[in-house]
């Protein structure tokens, strides 16, 4: 661990802290339909869109209507993406003449992008045309993020409103989220990324002549090996910057290239790396401020922010520490950081980012449900790799995905208030709303679905040599981590992969697809049900007897509940995975 590393991590934290309030305030203005300085540009467009689509912007929706609108929208856009993928061979902007995508992969990808997961069971540059990338995938980056944002706002309204049956209008929230928030921010970010060297073009792939010809030996089907001289390399091109910006801002994470943000055309410099990490946390951090403002308790927003920050820092510190440790397997060689070496584990990491920025990026991308990577999580040390895994298993509520992190966190807030709220001698209240049986029923349902899908599928996978285990390249505890990570990433709609698992099989495509679907849409139902129920409740005015949700003590309580209720469910399997692997590695055994 180096001073430089700490400074870079510190800088990131300070910038997020500084950006949270302005962005959160802006979000409040946008979703409360108050005046913003972008109104002159977007207000006419908004009006036009409503007129064209027949949306009545002042018509409020009950939670069920909100849910149905959201599901309908997701279904239609998923089918659209499926069709574009299948038909890309007949459509323009396909200079590489890539054929239509196979049905199962097209389905998997459509679901993956609709659910904001961006799990990529394919290599983009050899599978998807420019049109598919832009119309089929990049648009989902906007839509799925706007959907998440709308849902979080609806949930916050549920807390803030008193004796009302409605949560807002889904179409209005969607439209305003895209026009006022995602479009301008991603345009700014795209320009900034281009300035750092991220490419933006529609050119066919470049062919470069290799400085040194390579001999490649391949074994044919007849068992004979043939050696060929390779003198050129094909270098993929494309409209990267525009997709890169929303990939981060919308916590989507689906890379234009297979190497994702480790690729120099996606993430060329340490500064672009900082911008990308900031973009991941920007809206989720801002939403904590929005929560405080819309519910009339700014300090509550900061208490939630603090709980997120504590958990985030714990993750970063663990990952950075673990990755900086000398490997016991290389005992006897110098492994301390110096001018000539990074010190610690550099496998799978980009030299331009180093250990600190790789550990930070891995933590941030899994705290949020982004899933973009600038280093290979599979190559992390066991404990370093456990950090992203645990982040996802906690439900990606540490700032979390755009919107999804906020409502996931609020479920834990409600749970914390309920568990400890009784200790002040009143039936639990959250910001004036009594937490009753129905709310707890729905919250428990939300919490139950998540481990059910992850542990259920993973347990079946590890029992089946043909379905689950045949995809493993590593065995032992590391193999267990890989399988667990895949299902956690899919269910949590993260989309990052603990590489090493060949996921492009019928079994994994099918089950991971189901996991993504359930992780997004099934978990939404109880969440919105709580929001609708809370909105209809009376609000009890706050007194000295009211459970405090604004204090540091509440932050500690919330953090404790997340760790004990959220993480302990997975403690046994983690003990057999990364923890065991770490202890075995210390004893000189690796996988």
């Amino acid at each position, binding site marked *: 661990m180096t001073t430089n590393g700490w400074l870079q991590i510190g800088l990131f934290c300070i910038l997020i802290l500084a950006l949270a309030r302005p962005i959160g305030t802006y979000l409040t203005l946008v979703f409360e339909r108050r005046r913003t300085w972008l109104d002159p540009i977007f207000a006419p467009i908004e009006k036009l869109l409503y007129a064209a689509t027949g949306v009545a912007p002042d018509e409020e929706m009950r939670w069920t209507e909100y849910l149905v609108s959201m599901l309908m929208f997701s279904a239609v856009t998923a089918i659209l993406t499926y069709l574009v993928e299948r038909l890309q061979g007949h459509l323009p902007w396909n200079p590489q003449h890539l054929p239509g995508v196979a049905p199962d992969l097209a389905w998997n990808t459509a679901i993956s992008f609709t659910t904001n997961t961006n799990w990529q069971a394919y290599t983009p540059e050899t599978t998807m045309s420019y049109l598919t990338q832009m119309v089929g995938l990049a648009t989902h980056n906007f839509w799925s993020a706007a959907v998440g944002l709308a849902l979080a706002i609806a949930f916050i309204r549920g807390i803030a409103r*008193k004796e009302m049956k409605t949560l807002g209008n889904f179409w209005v929230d969607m439209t305003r989220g895209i026009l006022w928030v995602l479009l301008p921010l991603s345009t700014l970010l795209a320009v900034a990324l281009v300035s750092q060297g991220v490419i933006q073009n529609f050119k066919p792939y470049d062919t470069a002549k290799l400085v040194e010809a390579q001999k490649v030996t391949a074994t044919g089907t007849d068992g004979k090996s043939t050696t060929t001289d390779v003198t050129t390399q094909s270098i993929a091109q494309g409209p990267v910057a525009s997709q890169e910006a929303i990939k981060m801002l919308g916590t989507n994470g689906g890379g234009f290239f297979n190497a994702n943000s480790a690729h120099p055309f996606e993430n060329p410099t340490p500064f672009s790396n900082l911008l990308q990490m900031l973009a991941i946390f920007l809206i989720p951090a801002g939403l904590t401020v929005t929560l405080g403002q819309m519910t009339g308790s700014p300090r509550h927003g900061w208490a939630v922010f603090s709980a997120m920050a504590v958990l985030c820092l714990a993750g970063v510190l663990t990952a950075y520490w673990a990755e900086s440790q000398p490997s016991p397997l290389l005992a006897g060689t110098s492994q301390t950081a110096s001018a000539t070496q990074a010190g610690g584990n550099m496998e799978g990491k980009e030299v331009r980012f180093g250990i600190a920025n790789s550990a930070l990026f891995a933590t941030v991308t899994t705290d949020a449900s982004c899933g973009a990577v600038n280093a290979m999580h599979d190559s992390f040390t066991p404990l370093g790799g456990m950090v992203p895994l645990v982040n996802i298993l906690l439900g990606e509520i540490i700032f979390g995905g755009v919107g999804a992190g906020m409502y996931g966190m609020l479920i834990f807030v409600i749970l914390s208030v*309920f*568990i*400890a*709220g*009784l*200790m*002040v*001698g*009143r*039936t639990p209240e959250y910001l*004036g709303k009594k*937490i*009753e*049986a129905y*709310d*707890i*029923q729905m919250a*428990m349902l939300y*919490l*139950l679905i998540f*481990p*059910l899908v992850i*542990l259920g599928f*993973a*347990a079946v996978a*590890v*029992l089946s040599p043909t379905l689950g*285990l045949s995809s493993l390249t590593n065995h*032992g*505890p590391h*193999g*267990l981590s890989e399988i667990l990570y895949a299902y956690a990433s899919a269910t949590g709609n993260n989309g990052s992969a603990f590489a090493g698992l060949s996921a492009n099989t019928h079994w994994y495509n099918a089950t991971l697809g189901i996991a993504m679907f359930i992780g997004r849409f099934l978990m939404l139902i109880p969440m919105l049900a709580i929001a609708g129920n809370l909105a209809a409740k009376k*609000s*009890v*005015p706050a*007194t*000295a*007897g*009211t*459970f*405090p949700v604004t*204090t540091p*003590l509440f932050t*500690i309580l919330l953090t404790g509940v997340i760790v*004990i209720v959220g993480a*302990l*469910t*997975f*403690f*046994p*399997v983690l*003990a*057999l995975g990364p*923890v*065991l692997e770490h*202890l*075995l590695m*210390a*004893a000189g055994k690796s996988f």
Partner: protein
Amino acid sequence: MSTHEHRNRKSLFDPNIMRRASVDALVKLNPQTMMKNPVMFVVEVGSVLTTILLISDTLRHVGHFGFDLQITLWLWFTVLFANFAEAMAEGRGKAQADALRKAKAETTAFRVGKAGIEEVPSSQLRAGDVVQVVAGQMIPGDGDIIEGVASVDESAITGESAPVIREAGGDRSAVTGGTRVLSDMIKISITSNPGETFLDRMIALVEGAERQKTPNEIALNILLAGLTIIFLLAVVTLQPFAMYSGAPQTVFVLISLLVCLIPTTIGGLLSAIGIAGMDRLVQHNVLATSGRAVEAAGDVNTLLLDKTGTITIGNRQASEFVPAPGVSSGQLADAAQLSSLPDETPEGRSIVVLAKEQYGLRGRELANLNAVFVPFSATTRMSGLDMDGRSIRKGAVDAIANYLQEMGSSLPAEVRASVETIARSGGTPLVVAENGRALGVIHLKDIVKGGMKERFEQLRAMGIRTVMITGDNPLTAAAIAREAGVDDFLAEAKPKDKMDLIKREQAEGKLVAMTGDGTNDAPALAQADVGVAMNSGTQAAKEAGNMVDLDSNPTKLIEIVAIGKQLLMTRGALTTFSISNDVAKYFAIIPAMFAGVFPVLNQLNIMQLHSPESAILSAVIFNALIIVALIPLALRGVSYKAMSAAALLQKNLLVYGLGGIIVPFIGIKAIDLLIVAVHLA
């Protein structure tokens, strides 16, 4: 707190109750009973599974008999301990119900019919019947006295041995079946049918026969059931992961892990906490018609308290003599005392007492004074006496002013000023005049009960607003409110105003508690979230409220709120404790499960437990014993002092949250040392 010491209460841990509870714990093993408690039902199913497996393993000579047997036994103990806790909580109520049943014995009623009085068994009385009861007889049923006045021994119900006066009309007309008339004769209009009497309801309540889960208890049960399912999932899927890792587990170990992780501590004690909360109310001589009312008491935001009898002692008292210019205070005191000698009202008596205390004026015998008493009349609105040429009058300022005017005199400005000062300070001024000359003013004062100010401060700290209800004018009310330290007051209050205030508060989302005794209080008692009717009040009031205070002590409302809060706090504390316990249990069991195959995992055995068997056994034993250890806490409730929610949370999180994490580490280690020492593992 006033009277319940009188009754011969059973202690919480009376040997008879313990004996009865031990038997009940076994009876409660019935799966149909257990199903109502999802957490403990899972433990029972686990116990049955391990028992079957233990038998089959033994017959096939496989397994580790000693370990498996101990696990099985402790799992059964876990279930039994939880049942025992519930039975203990029910114990005192059951004993009390037995005592009440004796009071319900069949008596002969003397029904007043058209053809005169007829003798019928008390069980045949219907609502609307009129009965006559004479001294020495048992009152045959609940009702209101319609004729007569009597002293009644209500000790069978209240435990209070001093007789109480019950009389026709007014707010002290209600009598309860099973109580005894000690003097005089009364006629009672019966208000309840057989099986629906107050005594019947009371028996059902203290026995918990009609006990239904309260809203918060239902919510908590859902949380616990949800956690149980999540941990069930974690344990069921652990076996595949263990098999993948080459370390499959026995069913005994997996069930042990499950039982340790699911919230058995709170699951086992939850219903005991609820029953004990009701029981604590009963010990305070308050009967709640539902557990919901007790919970609501904890949530109350606003307390409506009647001034008279609750905040102030029943009557005004003379506190000061303010003489007119040129009159000595001794002169004034003398005249005041004389005019009050024949006045038997409490105010009159207090004037005599004050004169004696301040000026040493001894009471004089009226008969020796040759005086003529002038009683208070509605037209003159004065009272006084004439003797030896002295004509003394006292009364309200307007009345005396009129009187003086008639005598060709007038009220001096200084006296008027004194009158106003007294009124503004919350007192009632009485002007004294002698032979057409105003002597001065007697200050009659409402006396705020001792310690009320402190209690209101405590309530304020808990976020509860107190509103004083009084018929006084706003000026007087404001002064008393200030002196008593209540947050607000409702002056010149009529029953409708009270009702409106409750509705207004409720519209703001607040919960309101009040006490009442009169029939005109009944609508407000029904509207309030917590309506405590005085046992001495009318039947209508008692039926409208959701609690009845057998001691008829309106101040007790504050204690009721505290009991409600304590009930909720006990639930929260034990839930937090139970969930926090899991951390240590993981550290005991997980290394024990896998250290056999992966010795490196022993590094997680931070408690340094002796062996995998001793570790698992210790965790299971701790899990069972902690239920027993916490029974006293569950039954008595966590200690409770009035303080703000923030302070309470901090204190309880430290004790039950942090304590819940630390205690099992110590407990499991201690049990491990013990069972290794006695060679059980």
